[in-house]
């Protein structure tokens, strides 16, 4: 159906972004394909060392899923900060990723977990690494006739700590900046750190310089604070109505320090 609909066809998942955008005439569609009643697209299961989350799994179900809480607690924690209960009852993980809003909380989480996105279309099935999936603001590597069907994340074993830190101007506002962190601890220090940034550019980004600086660092406020100074390096936060790129860069540094310390359990 998507193939027949061409460029003007849209998938309807939770509708929490698409329906408001259609109402506001920010998006238009000739054909809307509702995939809510395709049971295969919902649910969470394990496949060897990966956790597989069906694209149509709602935020609410992600938060309450035992497997997610055990193997991808960062995803559960970030999803808890999304919108409000009614939005989380309808909105889906796949919809959030396919929507690729720079202020979306879940794209940087999947990036930090080194996740993979599985797409299905008339030419079959393909797997796209998260690092290649987010192409631009509201743009992913999905073709118009492809459906996102799964999000796969490697299970991270013992020794990993996680934290999602987000700053917003009001209860309803999207993240001004968010920082998703996974840290592997060893002998009281940080062996390996992954840092993902929300809303510091058109796509979610990894704070690569911070990650390098944290490898082998002490999990102290001083060491982490020093590494976090590079959080805005290579980012391209834009002006918006309320904030300047300088302010967002400042937030990125502060939130990165907080998130890494929390993930390392030194807070």
């Amino acid at each position, binding site marked *: 159906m998507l193939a027949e609909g061409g460029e003007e066809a849209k998938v309807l998942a939770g509708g929490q972004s698409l329906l408001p955008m259609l109402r506001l005439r920010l998006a238009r569609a000739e054909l809307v394909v509702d995939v809510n009643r395709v049971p295969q697209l919902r649910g969470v299961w394990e496949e060897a060392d990966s956790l597989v989350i069906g694209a149509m799994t709602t935020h609410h179900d992600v938060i309450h899923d035992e497997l997610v809480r055990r193997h991808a607690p960062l995803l559960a924690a970030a999803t808890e900060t999304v919108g409000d*209960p009614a939005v989380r009852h309808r909105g889906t993980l796949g919809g959030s990723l396919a929507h690729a809003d720079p202020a979306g909380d879940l794209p940087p989480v999947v990036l930090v977990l080194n996740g993979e996105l599985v797409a299905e279309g008339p030419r079959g099935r393909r797997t796209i690494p998260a690092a290649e999936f987010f192409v631009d603001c509201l743009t992913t590597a999905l073709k118009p006739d492809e459906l996102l069907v799964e999000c796969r994340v490697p299970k991270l074993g013992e020794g990993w700590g996680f934290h999602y830190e987000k700053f917003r101007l009001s209860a309803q506002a999207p993240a001004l900046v968010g920082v998703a962190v996974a840290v592997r601890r060893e002998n009281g220090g940080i062996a390996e750190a992954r840092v993902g940034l929300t809303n510091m550019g058109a796509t979610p980004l990894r704070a690569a310089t911070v990650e390098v600086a944290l490898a082998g660092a002490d999990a102290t406020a001083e060491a982490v604070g020093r590494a976090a100074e590079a959080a805005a390096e290579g980012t391209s936060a834009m002006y918006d109505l309320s904030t300047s790129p300088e302010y967002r860069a400042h937030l990125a540094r502060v939130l990165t320090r907080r998130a890494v310390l929390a993930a390392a359990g030194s807070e």
Partner: protein
Amino acid sequence: MNRISVNVDGTTYEDEVEPRLLLVQYLRDRLGLTGTTIGCDTANCGACTVDLDGLSVKSCSVLAVQADGGEVTTIEGLAQGTELHPLQRSFHEQHALQCGYCTPGMIMAARDLLRHNPDPRPEEIRHALRGNLCRCTGYQNIVQAVLAAAAELEAGRGAATSSEAALA
């Protein structure tokens, strides 16, 4: 046009609807259930909150066709005859409304919270109601009203003693 069958507040309706029709428009314009209000129609204010199959949703961000085969509860389905739901009563008694526009959605969202957290702390109430905007009250009395209703539901007391229970 699409044929739908929806149970709303205990009554089953069969209707032909346009695919683009929002659930809230169906409830208000087709069924005449105007207790559910529209504040923004873009999923931001929570005024239109109803239950769909046991979960709160913003009915301006659900299509009527998506409710086909489903069960909807609106603010108009809460009272038992002339007896108000404890949340309706506590909003009245605690002065949790001024113009009342946000109230139906506020009560439906609060009801969703109390279903899985019958004894919420004030900050949990604020968190659960973050998607519901009120332009009048400043929210304090809304939180009080939810606490009072929770206490009443917990105590399982009848209507006659509800005010004492609420103040206790």
